[in-house]
């Protein structure tokens, strides 16, 4: 990463409010979720994510990883149990308070969900635009961030003209542009080659070092094992101990990661 990019990354972290006394960013208690009358896709799920932690959420296909993430980014409500975000019980939040809560969370969707009619620049700037900021106040920051993720030369390209890796990095840029306290990524390495997977994971590690709490859903067991990060392992809707994945089952304060995904020394 270049010096400028590093400065920008540092500023991302510096302006976050990560020194809150209540360190639970996400708390699930006996959470169950079912769609309609179908069987529960999540059963008695309970865990706590503390500020600045980094977790992989893994498990076989259909285990409920995406459903769990949806509960965290408020795209769904649990059918039972309680979900608390940033110390607030989601059930007690009023509808008008939800947008502010959502702005504290950056999401990298599984299918990227970029807006096809908008340029890469507009896509990346979306959360800032939605928060009501004037374009003049953020265009330099957005340009710098896009450069940081390696899209400096593709800012005005439409998403469909970008490669899979570029789209992925654009989705990550959009997720982090408003400096969220919590970053969720659903299979962020699903459609990219191995080298790109490593680069993307390094990006998240870097963001985590800057103070963001990070949860990455992935079914790539090798990738998860090499990370040596704590793992939340889901199996048929139940959260299991995840020692076999080389991670601590109880997500406590985040240990300093000693993984294969340290910061990149070189430029992309």
């Amino acid at each position, binding site marked *: 990463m270049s010096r400028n990019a590093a400065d920008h990354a540092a500023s991302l972290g510096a302006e976050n409010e990560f020194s809150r006394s209540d360190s639970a960013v996400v708390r699930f208690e006996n959470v169950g979720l079912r769609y309609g009358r179908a069987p529960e896709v999540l059963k008695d799920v309970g865990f706590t994510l503390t500020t600045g932690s980094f977790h992989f959420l893994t498990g076989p296909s259909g285990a409920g990883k995406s459903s769990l993430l949806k509960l965290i980014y408020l795209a769904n409500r649990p059918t039972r149990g309680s979900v608390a975000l940033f110390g607030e019980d989601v059930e007690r939040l009023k*509808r008008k308070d939800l947008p502010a809560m959502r702005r504290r969370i950056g999401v990298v969707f599984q299918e990227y969900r970029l807006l096809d009619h908008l340029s890469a620049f507009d896509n990346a700037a979306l959360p800032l635009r939605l928060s009501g900021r004037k374009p003049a106040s953020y265009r330099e920051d957005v340009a710098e961030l896009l450069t940081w993720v390696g899209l400096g030369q593709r800012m005005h390209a439409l998403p469909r003209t970008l490669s899979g890796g570029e789209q992925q990095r654009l989705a990550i840029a959009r997720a982090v542009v408003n400096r969220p306290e919590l970053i969720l990524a659903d299979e962020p390495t699903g459609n990219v080659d191995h080298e790109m997977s490593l680069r993307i994971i390094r990006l998240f590690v870097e963001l985590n070092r800057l103070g963001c709490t990070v949860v990455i859903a992935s079914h790539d067991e090798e990738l998860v094992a090499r990370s040596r990060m704590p793992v939340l392992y889901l199996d048929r809707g139940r959260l299991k101990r995840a020692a076999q994945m080389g991670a601590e089952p109880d997500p406590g304060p985040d240990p300093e990661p000693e993984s294969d995904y340290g910061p990149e020394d070189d430029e992309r």
Partner: protein
Amino acid sequence: MSVSPGNLQRWKPGPLLPREDDREVSLGFVVAVLCFLACLAAVTGLAANRAADGWARQLRGEATVQVRPRVGETETAAAGRAAEALAGVKGVSEAAALERDKAEKLLKPWIGEASLKDLPIPQLVTVELDPRHPATARDLKRALDMAGVDGDVDDHSRWLTDVERSAGVVRWGIAGLFALMAAAAGAVVAFATRAGMAAQKDLVEVLHLSGARDDYIAGLFQLRFAKLAALAGFAGAAAAALAMALLKSLGGGDGFTPVLPLAWSDLLAVSPCPLVAATVAVLAARATTLRLLHRSP
């Protein structure tokens, strides 16, 4: 494409909703037709109102007195005395006995010529009233009594009531048509909003999950449909004004028919149409968007 500082300075955010598609062109056409019909109804209503006012004014400005002669007095003499007495009443501009020839002429279309000579035709006195301070039927009756003339006063109030009732029916009818067309336009916009939101489901969801407020998302659809409806309203209003102007030009000085007089100023009635159409569209789009958004968590 690379980005230079110059490019960056010129950058403006792109529209969050993609540009309109064919569905919206159809919607614009339907709203324009509804606006066209609503404007035609409005202008016709104004003309009908003016016609009713004219008839009422005419009826209010006249009264008819039927005179019954005394024993030994001719009908003409009794009518002459009555006319003289009535002419002096305050609020009467003119009173004159209706000559038998004129009375026969009035009756001829209904009764025919042959039987008129044998028919006892009532002797009538026509009274023109001062339009500003018209005399009442009671004033006229009192004057007849004082002059010793036996007669019945008809101030046309029965006809006036009929005309006013008819005018009221026309007014409410036009208002009803208006409400119906506004509701139809609203329903069409609501339908288009639902279709638009379904087509942009992904966009709406990404905005929603990225922290956009419901009001903000609703505002996007409101603005889109308000612009469309205003444009369609303008087109519909302009077409209606043109059609009415053509009818007035072709129909002579009194408009397209003498009983439905149209004034050039009536054409101004179409001017609020774009604003009304846009308002209906905003309300329909807002209600629809918020209802759909409230179904999401």
